[in-house]
């Protein structure tokens, strides 16, 4: 590993100024679980590493009166997993965080780091995209909100500018009739990243008609995949087993999967079909919130 200068700003302003000042030479470190591996493998060799470790102001989980969750970027995955507020408001998110890597990784890894890393084989992004979450980013030119549907741009690439810090994750309250699930499929060992993960959020009215359907498939392509045309097949309809199968077929047809050690493109396509079906059915059967 080549050495660098370690900077430890005490406010977000100071952090963004340092990032702006050092440009391409600077990289943020939060929990370090991804960044340290990149440094060790010499995938990157920044001149400056800017630690967010002193920014206690980014460490919180707030619940607003309307049920919206505001989660500071430095909150760990483990804290989200165990938070009673998240368990009550978005149990699928809490459960999904509980499935990330292993307990040591979850204790170190932060929400901001997980999203900013933008590794295609991550779990929380699919759930958060389906939940229509957004992030707040702050840079030297001010603050902006980015919906997660516009956040992931490619392999390890996000909409964040190099001098922007992701400061907050906002998870809007879902209508109380919403049900959800996340199914994670592992092809290797239990602590591995997924071959595929499907998040399904379904809102059904009391007559059994689907008001809203959001299905996001993670870990199969550069970015989490959502197929609007397939979701539209379900909206306004009764979600019968046949219709769910049709929606799953449409996902399998529309997504162009990648091949890696966890599965070939051909295999992933078959699994998209199976797991989209099971995730939507699972949400209908027993998913809460």
């Amino acid at each position, binding site marked *: *590993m*080549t*050495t*660098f*200068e*370690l900077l430890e700003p005490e406010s977000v302003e100071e952090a963004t100024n340092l990032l702006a000042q050092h440009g391409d030479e600077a990289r943020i*470190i939060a929990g*370090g*679980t991804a960044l*340290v*591996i990149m*440094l*060790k493998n010499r995938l990157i060799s920044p001149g400056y*590493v800017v*630690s967010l*470790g002193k920014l206690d102001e980014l460490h919180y989980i707030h619940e607003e009166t309307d049920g919206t969750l505001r989660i500071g970027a430095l909150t760990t995955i*483990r804290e989200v997993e165990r938070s009673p507020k998240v368990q009550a408001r978005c149990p699928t998110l809490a459960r999904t965080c509980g499935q990330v*890597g*292993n*307990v*040591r*990784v979850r*204790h*170190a890894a932060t929400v901001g780091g997980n999203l900013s890393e933008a590794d295609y084989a991550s779990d929380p992004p699919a759930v958060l995209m389906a939940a229509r979450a957004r992030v707040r980013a702050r840079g030297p030119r001010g603050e902006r909100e980015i919906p997660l549907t516009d956040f992931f741009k490619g392999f390890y690439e996000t909409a964040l500018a190099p001098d922007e810090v992701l400061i907050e994750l906002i998870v809007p309250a879902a209508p109380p009739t919403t049900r959800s699930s996340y199914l994670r499929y592992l092809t290797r060992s*239990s*602590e591995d990243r997924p071959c595929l993960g499907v998040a399904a959020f379904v809102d059904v009215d009391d007559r059994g008609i689907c008001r809203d359907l959001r299905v996001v498939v993670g870990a199969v392509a550069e970015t989490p995949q959502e197929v609007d045309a397939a979701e539209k097949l379900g909206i306004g309809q009764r979600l019968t087993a046949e219709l769910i199968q049709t929606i799953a077929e449409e996902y399998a047809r529309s997504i162009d999967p990648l091949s890696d050690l966890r599965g070939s493109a051909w295999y992933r396509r078959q699994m998209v079909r199976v797991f989209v079906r099971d995730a939507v059915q699972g949400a209908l059967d027993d998913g809460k919130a």
Partner: protein
Amino acid sequence: MKRIVQLRVNGVAREVAVEPHHILLDVLRQEFDLIGPREGCGIGMCGACTVLVDGVPLSSCLMLAALAAGKELVTIEGLSTGSELHPIQQAYLDHNAFQCSYCTPGFILGTKALLDENPSPTPGEVREYLSGNLCRCGSYVKILDAVLDAAQRLHSASEAGGVSGSLGPGANT
């Protein structure tokens, strides 16, 4: 450029000079002569390098040493009191819950963190919590027995009033 940082390890604070890119695991082994934390994978997957940091288990192979300043670090060496083993250590010994023992310090610290958080875990909860600790010798069955037994021992000890060697994070400050 080296900087002087103060690291608190097993209740004792010491200043060391580290480079910003130095990894905590290497500093513990080389500067502190603590060889309980070991390198297995170097990428957070195996748990051989586990250290308790402010009471929670972390992979020291993924931590910059300089960023551990101000935190309370506990390695396996900090678990016993004098020559008396911690009840979890004793349970691992009594159950022969290892063969080569390369993974053992990590498993024991993981167990400590688990039982601090959840004093009476079910077998499923133990498996789940320790699923990120790998044992190449495959001692998993005996490890599970040792953890469940350790939970019992800690339970009886606390009922009898006070656990010997129950070093919580920062307990011997």
